[in-house]
């Protein structure tokens, strides 16, 4: 006869693998959507980060509408809207416009989704949609658009929540090595940069604790659709992105006359430059090696 304690243990041993199995079966895109929704809810409840629910509504509606329209127009069917949902929330969190205007969210949403249909190589889009939209807006409209740099609380609790869920989900999506490689590279390279410039190290590595980077390391640099294939190559690209960002920061340290976008969002610009190049090389070399066209990556 089984004692209650033993029964509980047996039940636990039965349910845990079952839950784990169910977790493994969940489409990774839903997990990413869950994570960014969590970020949105926590940041809004705790810090009112959105700055007006009309921004959220406009960004989401624009992304979804453009996705529906363009996928139907190009492919003759409406695709899964998870990507549009993630882009809409990312833009809501990241875009900080001049004044109480909402048109940057319309423009950003359009650029993000349309970039997937226009900027392709061998049938695969090569920019993370949100990264492209943010970078394009920062470069084209620095007088009217900036990115999230405040209203996040500056406390560890929020970051811990995001990192706890983020690491679990990134593991499930099999991109956690990208996140960790980038973060470690960022810390090492920028510490080195600080030492070379005889500057205190802490301010130079401080940005990684900021709000932009929480979104960057879990939603942009790890985008399953735009990362290269092969785990080692993904880690190499993450290092190169961190290196490019460090070089951008070094140029800013030296007062080089870069566009303001490079000073404001060096990580975004580094990814926007390195990411597509890496993706194109990846697709090109895969074709050369296989002697046939590459199949678009699946998340």
């Amino acid at each position, binding site marked *: 006869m089984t004692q209650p304690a033993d029964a509980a243990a047996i039940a636990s041993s039965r349910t845990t693998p079952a839950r784990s199995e169910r977790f493994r079966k969940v489409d990774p895109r839903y997990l990413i959507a869950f994570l960014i929704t969590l970020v949105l809810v926590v940041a809004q409840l705790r*810090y*009112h980060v959105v*700055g*007006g629910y009309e921004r959220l509504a406009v960004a989401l509606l624009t992304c979804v509408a453009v996705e529906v329209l*363009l996928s139907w*127009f*190009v492919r003759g069917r409406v695709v899964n809207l998870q990507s549009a949902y993630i882009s809409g929330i990312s833009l809501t969190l990241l875009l*900080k*416009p*001049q*004044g*109480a*205007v909402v048109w940057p969210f319309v*423009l950003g949403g*359009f*650029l993000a989704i*349309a970039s997937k*249909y*226009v900027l*392709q*190589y*061998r*049938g695969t889009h090569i920019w993370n949609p949100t990264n492209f939209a943010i970078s*394009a*807006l*920062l470069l*084209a*409209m*620095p*007088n*009217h658009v*900036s990115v*999230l*740099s*405040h*209203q*996040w*609380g*500056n*406390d*560890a609790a929020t*970051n811990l929540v995001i990192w706890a869920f983020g690491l679990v989900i990134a593991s499930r999506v099999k991109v956690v090595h990208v996140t960790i490689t980038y973060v470690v590279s960022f810390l090492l390279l920028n510490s080195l940069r600080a030492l070379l410039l005889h*500057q*205190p190290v*802490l*301010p*130079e590595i*401080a*940005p990684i*604790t*900021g*709000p932009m*980077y929480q979104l960057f390391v879990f939603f942009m640099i790890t985008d399953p659709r735009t990362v290269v294939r092969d785990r080692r190559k993904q880690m190499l690209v993450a290092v190169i992105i961190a290196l490019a960002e460090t070089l951008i920061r070094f140029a*800013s*340290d030296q*007062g080089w006359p870069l566009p*303001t976008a490079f*000073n*404001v969002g060096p990580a975004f610009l580094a990814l926007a430059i390195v990411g597509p190049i890496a993706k194109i090389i990846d697709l090109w070399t895969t074709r050369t090696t296989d002697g046939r*066209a590459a199949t678009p990556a699946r998340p």
Partner: protein
Amino acid sequence: MSAELPRHQFARRAVIAIPFFAAIVAAARLDRGPIRASADPARPGFVLHDETAAAGIHFVHQRPSFDPKIANIEPHVAALGASVSVGDFDGDGFPDLYFTTSRFGEPNALYRNKGDGTFDEVAASAGLADLNRPGEGVSMGSVWGDFDNDGREDLLVYRYGYLALFKNLDGHHFQDVTQSAGLHRWMNSNGAIWIDYDRDGLLDLYVTGYFRDDIDLWHLSTTRIMHDSFEFATNGGKNLLFHNLGNGKFEDVTDKLGVGSTRWTLAAASADFNEDGWPDIYLANDYGPEELYLNDHGKRFVLSTAGLESESKSGMSVALGDVYNRGHLDVFVTDISERGYLFQNNNLRLNEMTPDAGSNDKPRFHNMADAVVADAGWAWGAQFGDLNNDGSNELFVANGFISADSTKSYWYAMSKIAGANGRLFEDASTWPAFGNASLSGYERSRVFLNRGLGGWVDVAQQVGITDRYDGRAVALADLSNRGALDVIVANQNQPAVLYRNRPDSTNHWIGLSLVGTRSNRSAIGAEVVVESGGLKQRRVVDGGMGFASQNDRRLHFGLGHNEWIDRVVIHWPSGAQQVITNPAIDRIVVVQEPKQ
């Protein structure tokens, strides 16, 4: 790459590419031009002339120096202290000016208005010059108010250091009564207002705290003196409310009344926002959301949300004015915008705290700042005033933080640390060194012309405002009693400027000089509604407003082409209401509160 796609897909992608690239090009083109026309098609209706030197004002603010432990960010910490407050200390009917400076050994300045457009500097003889001394602190600002109701304006000077209260003895000389008044308190303060919160006819005092009061900036025991969050910091100095006991003494009633915010308050202003007859307190907090303390019958203050909690910024200044002539006092709070880096956006909050103010649900303020008003740069002091006498308020905003080497900007360094964990930047020693860099320096002031529902337009260049000083305090006053609001700007580490206003002579006006009897004699807190030919305007006699400033306590109303006033309704701080019908216009009218 297109060869692998079906031909029709390629063609359709090409169709999408057209608006895609057109949108990017259009965005870049739009970014190079203003959102709206830079000038109003109509004439602004006034001109502002820099007549500082001609008026005999030669005041230059000097910034302080602090403990070498924070030398790396001293330009930032020492970037405040230029202030100006308006008060008729000699009772001759012409408003005088008091400027503060912030370096040890440097004198503050009291400019006596001679009535002929010129001023005499009399601070030393009045006993109000020598206030920047080691061990006592450096001046950050001042407010005038007749705390003992003897008919003469007294002066409170707040400092990074001890408060200082000066009793006006005879209209010429002042006596330091800080100790006997019970106000010898070390506060690192940037603001104070007079307010009769309990309507007992005596002016009470609300002083804001910035750095904690256990911090002596010249003898630091720690470098952990900064804010612990850029958005939600609560580790600043505690604001204090002092109750005027009527015997020359004040009592600290902060905790009893519940108004001891520690949110790094930079500015405060008071008015009866919900029009329940009791003066409320509105705070602009650096590194945090604004706060509204509603007065519960003089017994306590209740922190109201009122829609303010949803936006956390860097509030610098609180200006009150009836923006759209609705008969309610709205609020303008300045914040930081630096193009490309940060758009905190100034707040223009319409008052929907009263039952008839348009709020459909709970009382609240509704932010109406459009892009023009929202982005004035790194904005500091601001004031509403009808500069062209057309019956609606213009808005003067001073801008610019630190002007040093114009080829170096601290913004990139700031962006590295601004989003970081609070433990990092709470410690001043971890901040990147400022060196000789500028931070939003060399910005120009804005003068926003009110076009009602047509929005605001910046006419600063048109009306003659071209200086690039680091503006801090702004005060408005009709310095020559001629029906024109002049503008006085105190600039940080730079000369103060007096802009003489020349409005179109076709518009009419009225000035109201209120004298309290049952209320405090300065009539601070009195609110006046002027109704003229369908025009309705509300103003409040301020006991400190803007940033480190105080306007002329006489209320100035432009009337446009209206040649009469239907009625003037005065809500006295005592609770009395007085109605004046058809007063004379184009002059300053003295109104004494009815004694019964």
